């Protein structure tokens, strides 16, 4: 609105007419064209090709002639128990990792928002897990923390008299979620911290003067203020975590409780399955459902938190 209002006086008057040629939308956007073409080439073309592959029975080992089979791959998909298993793993893994890291991230952010000695140092330490490469994080946790024989966690458990637990073998999904939470809590923490620091101190002081309890202030003022930050964290977290692959590959190498959709698509295609037609159908379904889920989830979340504000 303000931009339009400002543009009117400048554009008015006969002298401005020749400059209008440059102001035409397509001219302004022209410099962006190479980037647009590039983006279409590297994202949309492969996507359209995947759609085409998903309508064929393409399989390269043993080499089989590619044949158009219509929606056959999609029809078989719902019958495939392994696809359903992988979908369920993806849902539980993503939802629990996002929620847990959001909660932990918020708690840590609340602590970090206070003034204390060594704040910068502590903040740096807390951010570190997010900077570690996923493969490295997975391997460190698997071999140094969770290992049944040599793991730090089991060493501690044995000191307090609990028999060692083979975490990764026994609880593959839980172990992967734990590592994901460990890596993504700092990310959520940073986002929430930004939200906390943008909160006006006058409002907080006013609530203190009015005699609100610390928890009341948090629930009635801080949480509604954080809404958009939490939404952003949840959205970004979901977008990234739904495509988790590295942790699954290095920690368990798949299995009924840890093969999520990306790993499943990998297994069925270049990971040894070589059924590119069917694997393409899987990935198309994954993309479409994640877009739908993300949109719906965001709306629900947004409404949920808005309700809080009114109350």
């Amino acid at each position, binding site marked *: 609105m303000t931009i339009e209002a400002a543009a009117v006086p400048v554009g008015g008057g006969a002298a401005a007419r020749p400059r209008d040629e440059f102001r035409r939308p397509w001219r302004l956007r022209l410099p962006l064209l190479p980037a647009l073409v590039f983006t279409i080439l590297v994202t949309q073309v492969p996507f359209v090709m995947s759609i085409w592959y998903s309508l064929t029975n393409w399989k390269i080992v043993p080499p089989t002639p590619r044949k158009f089979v219509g929606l056959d791959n999609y029809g078989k998909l719902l019958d495939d128990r392994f696809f359903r298993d992988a979908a369920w793993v993806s849902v539980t893994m993503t939802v629990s990792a996002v929620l847990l890291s959001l909660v932990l991230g918020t708690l840590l952010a609340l602590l970090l928002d206070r003034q204390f000695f060594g704040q910068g140092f502590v903040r740096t330490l807390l951010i570190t897990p997010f900077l570690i490469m996923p493969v490295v994080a997975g391997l460190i946790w698997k071999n140094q923390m969770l290992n049944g024989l040599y793991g730090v966690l089991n060493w501690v458990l044995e000191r307090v008299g609990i028999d060692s637990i*083979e975490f990764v073998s026994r609880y593959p999904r839980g172990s992967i979620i734990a590592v994901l939470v460990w890596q993504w809590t700092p990310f959520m923490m940073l986002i929430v911290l930004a939200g906390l620091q943008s909160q006006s101190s006058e409002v907080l002081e006013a609530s203190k003067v009015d005699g609100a309890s610390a928890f009341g202030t948090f629930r009635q003022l801080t949480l509604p203020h954080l809404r958009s930050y939490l939404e952003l964290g949840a959205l970004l977290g979901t977008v990234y975590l739904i495509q988790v692959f590295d942790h699954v590959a290095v920690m368990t190498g798949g*299995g009924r*409780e840890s093969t999520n959709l990306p790993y499943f698509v990998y*297994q069925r295609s270049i990971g040894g399955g070589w059924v590119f037609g069917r694997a393409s159908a899987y990935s198309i379904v994954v993309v479409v459902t994640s877009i739908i889920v993300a949109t719906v989830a965001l709306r629900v979340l947004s409404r949920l938190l808005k309700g809080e504000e009114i109350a």
Partner: protein
Amino acid sequence: MYRQDVLDEAGIEMPANPTWDEVAEIARTVDSDDMAGICLRGKPGWGDLGASFTTVLNTFGATWWSANDDGTIGEAQIDQPEFKTALEFYTGLLADAGEDDAANASFNECLAQYRDGKVAMWYDATVAAGLLEADDSPVQGMNGYAMAPVVETESSGWLWSWALAIPQNSPDPDTAWEFISWATGPEYIAAAGDLISGGWAAIPPGTRLSTYELPEYQEAAAAFADQTLAAMDAAPIDSPGTTPRPGLPGVQYVGVPEFQDVGNRCTEEFSGVIAGRTNVDDALSACQDIASQAVS
């Protein structure tokens, strides 16, 4: 491979050509809190658990797939009783007398546990013997060796090789060939014995017959050299089981393109049984579906 001292102490003698029942009984007898009876691969992967377990199912009379008359791949056979017996035997033995965290163990994990004195026996590739008898091995000189255990077949065990190749676009194929010839030739073997930290026992076994004529190797590898040759000779690569099967020659794998994926995903299921997350019947029914899907 087994710890001679441990079996001696228990008053047990390992037959030269044991059956799996005999090995399982010994494993259960010597199993204790400090030392597991036997180390078997349990880590998912067609070349990990898949390799060890395929030799076991072969000798139990089972097979992954049947073969058509022309030797091509037929129907999945995971739902057959022999397959179930083999899987129950393997997972049961690991549950009773297997190593710690068996569902995560393959060659390297078992090697570490055996050298640490945490297992009394180990069923794996013959190449391990040289590492157990190496100069830097804590269990050097404490081991006995027997042929791969059997049930229904004359012999079991497996045969595998790692190979070097020259890419077609190599800038200098002649030098590459010279290097490969040297690295796999008798000269390398003769030079390596004095140079590698494990000493003569740890040089690559089974790559050249001439290795076995070197006096230094005969002395250092006395405990296992003959056994290695015998095991390689006995590996039933052309007929590993009791029924016709596709993908021959091959013992611990099925030489068909479908096997990589099926082997990986089925051993994930079997490893789940070893970890106690699922049961034999569930794993077999999932695996039958996987193996059938692959050939449909």
